[in-house]
């Protein structure tokens, strides 16, 4: 038995990828939960908003790369990210003016807005594929690893290697910074409090002098920043392909609902719950179990509960379980 090698192997294939994927889901779910809490509908266009933000960032990254600009060991995409966020803010504000505002003025019920957001989703989906095409795009440059498997083996003398990709470190650091900023904004600033007040009790917020259009605008701006950041981090870590963002919608919604819709803290917890379930269930445990068990009991098969092709089934099942047994989610969100 060799616990050290087992743990290193587990970290390499489950813990570290899980934390990075969880951070990306958490950022995505935060955007969904904000729209649900403040604008009161589930925004099905969120995945494609992420794709749009990532697309703008990819285009600007390519342009910067062609100019020879680089951040050294860091990916150039980080330099392009603010432009991507700006582009997405413009897109969301234009969408709001052109589409959502009409329904707000009609006092349309939230479920109407859900359907409307699906229409918006298809349009955004089309725009992204039209501009950048449906294929995989690479835009990652800079140092690929913070610690590579080989140097780790040489350093420690263990059989198992531990690789930490620079994109994973960047993902986690960015997520922590963004979440801290968001919570500071919502809990400490006047504008943030007015958003929470509007979410809590719209009528009373109006009587207190809160301008609803301003709250809506602020919400879209924050959602644009969150979605673009999440989309770019995911694209850097894996690759940019418009269709994967559309598929990401399911784990993102599962995260938001598992944590409790409308609860920012819940969205973060939900992101990690979904990410770790997905990674652990689709991971082949043969190696780790081989280290942990006496040789005679070592498994012959891969000990993989589900093929990675079925990873979306995991979020779907978790979503079903939560909705059946704890519909308010882990953090007592607003859904009943």
């Amino acid at each position: 038995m060799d616990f050290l090698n087992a743990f290193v192997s587990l970290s390499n294939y489950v813990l570290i990828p899980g934390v990075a994927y969880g951070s990306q889901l958490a950022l995505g779910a935060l955007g969904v939960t904000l729209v649900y809490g403040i604008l009161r509908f589930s925004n099905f266009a969120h995945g494609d908003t992420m794709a749009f933000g990532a697309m703008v960032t990819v285009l600007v990254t390519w342009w910067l790369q062609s100019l020879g600009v680089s951040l050294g060991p860091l990916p150039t995409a980080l330099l392009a990210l603010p432009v991507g966020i700006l582009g997405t803010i413009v897109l969301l504000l234009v969408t709001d003016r052109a589409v959502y505002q009409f329904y707000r003025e009609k006092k349309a019920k939230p479920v109407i807005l859900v359907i409307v957001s699906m229409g918006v989703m298809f349009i955004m989906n089309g725009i992204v594929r039209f501009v950048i095409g449906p294929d995989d795009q690479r835009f990652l440059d800079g140092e690929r690893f913070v610690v590579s498997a080989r140097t780790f083996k040489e350093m420690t003398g263990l059989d198992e290697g531990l690789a930490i990709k620079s994109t994973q470190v960047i993902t986690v650091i960015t997520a922590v910074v963004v979440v801290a900023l968001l919570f500071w904004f919502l809990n400490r600033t006047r504008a943030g409090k007015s958003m929470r007040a509007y979410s809590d009790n719209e009528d009373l917020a109006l009587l207190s002098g809160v301008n609803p259009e301003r709250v809506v605008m602020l919400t879209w701006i924050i959602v644009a920043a969150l979605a673009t950041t999440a989309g770019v981090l995911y694209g850097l870590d894996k690759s940019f392909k418009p269709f994967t963002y559309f598929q990401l919608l399911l784990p993102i919604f599962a995260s938001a609902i598992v944590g409790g819709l409308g609860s920012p803290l819940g969205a973060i917890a939900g992101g990690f719950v979904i990410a770790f379930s997905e990674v652990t269930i689709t991971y082949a445990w043969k190696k780790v179990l081989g280290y942990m068990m006496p040789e005679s009991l070592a498994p012959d098969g891969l000990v993989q509960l589900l093929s990675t092709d079925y990873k979306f089934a995991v979020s779907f099942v978790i979503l079903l379980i939560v909705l059946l047994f704890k519909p308010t989610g882990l953090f007592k969100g607003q859904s009943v």
Partner: protein
Amino acid sequence: MSSDPYGDRGNKDASIANPRGGSTSHPVKKGGHASAAPGGPFLIGEGMTGGYGSGPDILHDCTIAVEKGEIAVIVGPNGAGKSTAMKAVFGMLDLRAGHVRLDGEDITALSPQDRVRKGMGFVPQTNNIFASMTVEENLEMGAFIRTDDFRGTMEQIYDLFPILRDKRYQAAGELSGGQRQQVAVGRALMTQPKVLMLDEPTAGVSPIVMDELFDRIIEVARTGIPILMVEQNARQALEIADKGYVLVQGANAYTGTGKDLLADDEVRKSFLGG
């Protein structure tokens, strides 16, 4: 409702549509300007006729007024239009006739939000606090339109409602019914209003808490803020009232000082249970 293209047709799926805290008010026309109209009582809704949206008239030539330093109380049977009269004064329904004047200005055309800026404080009957926010945040939101330093006002409110100081960092939704009402009144007072309007402040609280709330309301009135109040508990309310209005079917039935109305045989028989 099936004819409403923007309705939800009975959708109850909270996992896609958030049912909480949404706007329930009828769309009220925006804008409009206040014009000078000197003379008359401090706040008066005069000859008000109207209802919600394009619905039937609920108020018929109804007049309600309050003078500086007074407590005016609106009482009447269920469905008499008491709350509606209050909402009409606050601009939450369209008046087809009549005027609302505040402090020498005609504010009939103003939206409720603009009336708050003109110095009206309104405490609705239900959903009158931000339940998920702390007591202190509730008070801060009350002062949202103020750009000056409002910490002094907050201290005054904590002096007026000492229990709120102890619970300032608690979520307002976790407080008892009486304490919630104090938060609601405190929130409305944060704008330093020129007049305070309370819609059934004692609804759903125990008799002991009710007495305490009435004491607090008298204290607020002693600070010089005129109070216009709708009350179910007619007898207690008229006892503290300088002026009382008895409404029946959206019209003034009896008007007088609180003492006069309590002494009036007709009023006693019809509304106060003998």
